[in-house]
Structure formats: structure tokens, C-alpha cells
């Protein structure tokens, strides 16, 4: 009985731990994601060949988070719209961009702003990790640096 001998050699504690490990692994594969079983495949899908953020660009081309500015004044409400960009498709996190737009909305109004463009700042990532960037203008506004 090789199996019995192997288990005895491991001892009950290790044998139980390893068998639970194997059992959970198989159960996860079968169930996929049904609590408490999971395949834990977050970020397993791998490469997104781009990245982006909704950002503020000043007249010198310097990029900042939109939260670096206040007293925003824009011709219309700022709505992130990646699909309207020529560079689309690119990777974006909708709720991140929505939060940035909300910041602009909540910090609107005020005087003395400088011209600031709201842009989708896009990084294209080459197969070896090299970066190139491009901006897609969403709105031309004025805002004051905080």
C-alpha cells in the first residue's frame, strides 16, 4: 500500500493539508467562481497593451491628475468618452475616469483659472514593454492649480 505508506510518512497534519490543497484546487476548477470555490483568475488574463487615465494638461503640456486643479470651468459637463478617441481601443478603468469627471463637476466654478485641457492620456505598450504616449482631448476648460 504505497499510498498509505506515503500518507503515514507525511503524517496526518501534512497529509490533510496537502489533500485539502489538492481538493480545493480541483473543486475551484470545477466550480470556477462559486463561493467559497474560486479559480482565482484575477489578472490571470494577462497583457493589456495599453493604459490610460483621464488627466489635466496645462498650456505647457504638463500632465497632472484632475484633482490637482480646482475652480473648473468647462463649456459643457466633462464626460469621459474613450470610444470617441482616434486612439481607441485602449485600456481604461471606467470608474477611475468617472471619478475624475466627478471631481471636475464637484469643483466647478470660480475665477482666475488658467487654460487646462482634460485629456485621455494613453500609453501604448509595446511587446517588450516600451512606451509611447498620446493624448485625446475631451474638453478645453480653465481651472486653478490647488
Amino acid at each position, binding site marked *: 500500500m504505497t499510498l498509505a505508506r506515503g500518507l503515514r510518512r507525511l503524517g496526518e497534519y501534512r497529509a490533510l493539508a496537502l489533500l485539502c490543497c489538492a481538493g480545493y484546487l480541483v*473543486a475551484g476548477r470545477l466550480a470556477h467562481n462559486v*463561493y467559497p470555490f474560486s479559480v482565482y*483568475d484575477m489578472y490571470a*488574463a494577462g497583457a*493589456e497593451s495599453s493604459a490610460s487615465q483621464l488627466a489635466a494638461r496645462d498650456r505647457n503640456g504638463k500632465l*497632472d491628475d484632475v484633482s490637482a486643479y480646482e475652480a473648473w470651468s468647462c463649456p459643457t459637463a466633462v464626460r469621459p468618452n474613450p470610444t470617441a478617441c482616434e486612439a481607441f481601443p485602449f485600456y481604461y478603468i471606467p470608474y477611475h475616469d468617472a471619478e475624475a469627471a466627478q471631481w471636475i463637476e464637484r469643483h466647478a466654478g470660480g475665477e482666475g483659472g488658467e487654460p487646462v485641457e482634460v485629456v485621455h492620456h494613453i500609453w501604448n505598450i509595446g511587446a517588450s514593454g516600451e512606451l509611447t504616449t498620446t493624448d485625446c482631448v475631451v474638453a478645453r476648460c480653465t481651472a486653478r492649480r490647488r
Partner: protein
Amino acid sequence: MSVSPWGASPRRGLRVGLALVLAFDATIAANALSHAEVGEDSIRAVPWLLALGGRPLVVWALAAVAYLAAFMFARARRPIASGLVALAVLGALVGALTALQAMVPRNFYVTGTAVTGWLVGELVEWARRRRGEPVASPGALPEAGAAGALAAMYLSAAVSKLTLTGAEWLSPVTLESLVLTQHSLSDQSLLASYMRLVATTPSLATALAGAALVMQLFAPVWLIGPRLRAAWGTLFLAFHLNVFLLTGIPYLEPFALVLLFSYPWPKLAARLRRQAPGGEVEAPERGPALALVAIPLALALLGLAARTAVPEPLRFVSGSLNAPAARSSRPAEAPLARFGPLAVGEPLADGWRLDALELRGEEVRFWIARQDQRLYIAVVPSVERARGVFARDGADAFHEQTKLPLEQFDAAGKRLMARLAEAAGSRPLSDALRAWVAAR
């Protein structure tokens, strides 16, 4: 040398720790559900789960049941029953969140994983007591079960990476994309500099990805003995800390549980109090070792039951429904005018037409367009069970992440896949796809 970092000490600390994390999960899930509403992306496969959204009275009542069960679990009162009740309530809350947000809140799964393993150990211990056999160190077997399940979590993460993406996961692109999308453009702190360094140094990004993969793949090392438990546990903690620093994603539950299970806390506490530490875990004299082989079988059966009981859209949400699993980081080759039976310009359904065709290795991207809407459906030959909303036997098929509700392009995607399957005829679709790639 003891096989457990907790030696022969009582496992009360582990029980209380697990119970606290369970209660924490119940609180976070109930709070999120209280404010959750059915949205465009919500999965309507299980209506009663959706009904929990925005009903604070109901979800907090469920959370109260989970608190009570966690309290009993911590006090070792009917630990198996209380653990199962806690898992069932958390399962309902997590299922509801998954259905409402179309996103798997995996942090909660970590606790469920550990408690599942713990309950397996409790059952073995209960069976031994029932047979009148000695239990040398009460709580040691539940601890072993929980540790085994936690190691499986990391191993499973590695297996998922290897099966979904293979060696390509080591590409610096994944980490760079994550960090660039989440880092602050204005932050000039040391931490921001570290993030920028990782995002702009492909070799560093690859090294970090490789280290994570190796650490996860060899997670069972964590189970071998107290020294390796502490060493590998420290690696797990460093990994979670690094993920938090780079992406801001706080994996609180695994961090807390690994911290709890990795170190000889009773021994350390005894040293602080200058008392003698607990003894060894005694090997059972009449251990039913061979019967333990039933554990993986029982867990597999439970997994199978879960698979049968829960509809696929809920099981696969965010895991693969719209996961970019099929997306390749390989640059597109020259655009194609035709692929297999499909030519650019061909109408599909609901006003959608095939707008462009791209080949990236074995992956074919079918760009579909309608007025100002455009997205792609990525199709990859599959040898195992096919994945993705438009999958067919022999082909994974994922759609691009998009704000468009699936209903809007569902018919077009299905039509596209039906055309491919028809043209494949009696051949497996995977073979046909490969033949069309070769013949381009």
C-alpha cells in the same frame, strides 16, 4: 520539530482570527449591498440574488446571522454547523454582489477558502472523536485544512495564469498597464517614483511578475513545516504589500490570514511573557490516513455540485465572460480582408457588420461596427472547455471591455460564431480556425 507553527497550543487565536475576518467580510458585503442597485451590467440569471440589492434591512439581517455564526465559530460552539451557516450567508451576500455588480469580489472568497479547509479538518477531528480515537492537539487538523486551502488559493492563481496566458503572463505589459492606469500623475513621492520605475522598466516588471508566479506555483511549500511556513508566508505578505503599493489594491483578507497562519504566535507570545511554549503536535497513533484520500474527492464533488447549481453567467462573471483572456499583447499583423467564411463588410445582426479583421498569433479579432459603435470579438482555438460569452466548442470567444450592454451586440456575436461553426462543418472549430489562420 513540530509540523505546525502553532505546535500543541490551542488554536483559539486562529478561530477568533477567522471569525473576525468572516465578520469583516459580512460587514463590507452587507454595506455594499445596501447601496447596490440593479444596473445595465447586472446578471439577471438568479433574480432573488438581485433582489438583495438596495435592501438594507434584509442584508443587515443576513449579516447579523453571519455575526452570530462567526461568534459561535470563534467560541468553538458547534463549529461545523456555525461555519457552514457563516459560509452559506456569505455565499448569498457575495453571490448577490457578483450578480449586481457583474464583478467577482474575490477578497471575500479568500476567507471562504480558509473556512472551507478549516471545516474539512473539523470534520476529520470530529470523526476521530466519534470513533473514540485520541486527538493529540485539538484544532491542529482544522488548522492544517485551512492552511491547505489557502495554499490552494495561491496555487490556483498560478494555474489560472499559466492556463489562460501561459508564459506570456511574464510579459512586462500586464504590470505596466495596471500601474500606469492606476498611478497618480501628480504624485512626486518616493512611492510614486517606485511605481513609475516599475511602469517604465520592463525588466523590473517582468522580474516582479516572474517572482509572483514562482511564489504562487510553489505555494504548497508553505505546508511543509514551521520554518518554511514562516519563510513562504513572508513572501506572500511581501507580494500583497507590493501589489498594494503598485496598484492600490488592498488584499486585506489574504494578508490577515497569511499573517495569522504563518508564524508561531503562541510561541512568540510565550516568549514575551517568559513562559514555556506549547509542545509538539503529536502524531496520531491510529490515524485513519488512507481515509483522508476521500477529502479531495469530497471537495471535488462539492465543486461539481456548485457548478451544477449556479448558472454559468454568474460563475464566469469577470472571470472569463468579458475577461481579456484571449487578448494577445502581440501586435496586430497586417489587417485581413477575409477570414474563413467571413469577409469585411459582411452584415451580422441588429445593424452590426464586420468592420475589420486582425490577426494576433492564433487570436483573430473580429471588429464589428454599427453607426458610431465599434468593438471587437476575439476568437482563439481552444482545446479544453471553451470560455467566453460567445464561446463554442473548440473556440474561446471574448468581447472587448466596453460600456455597451451585451444585449446590444449579443445577436451579432452569436451570428459571427454561428457563421464560423457552419463553415467548419464536421471539423472541430479549433482545427478550422487554425487552418484559416494558416491559409491567410
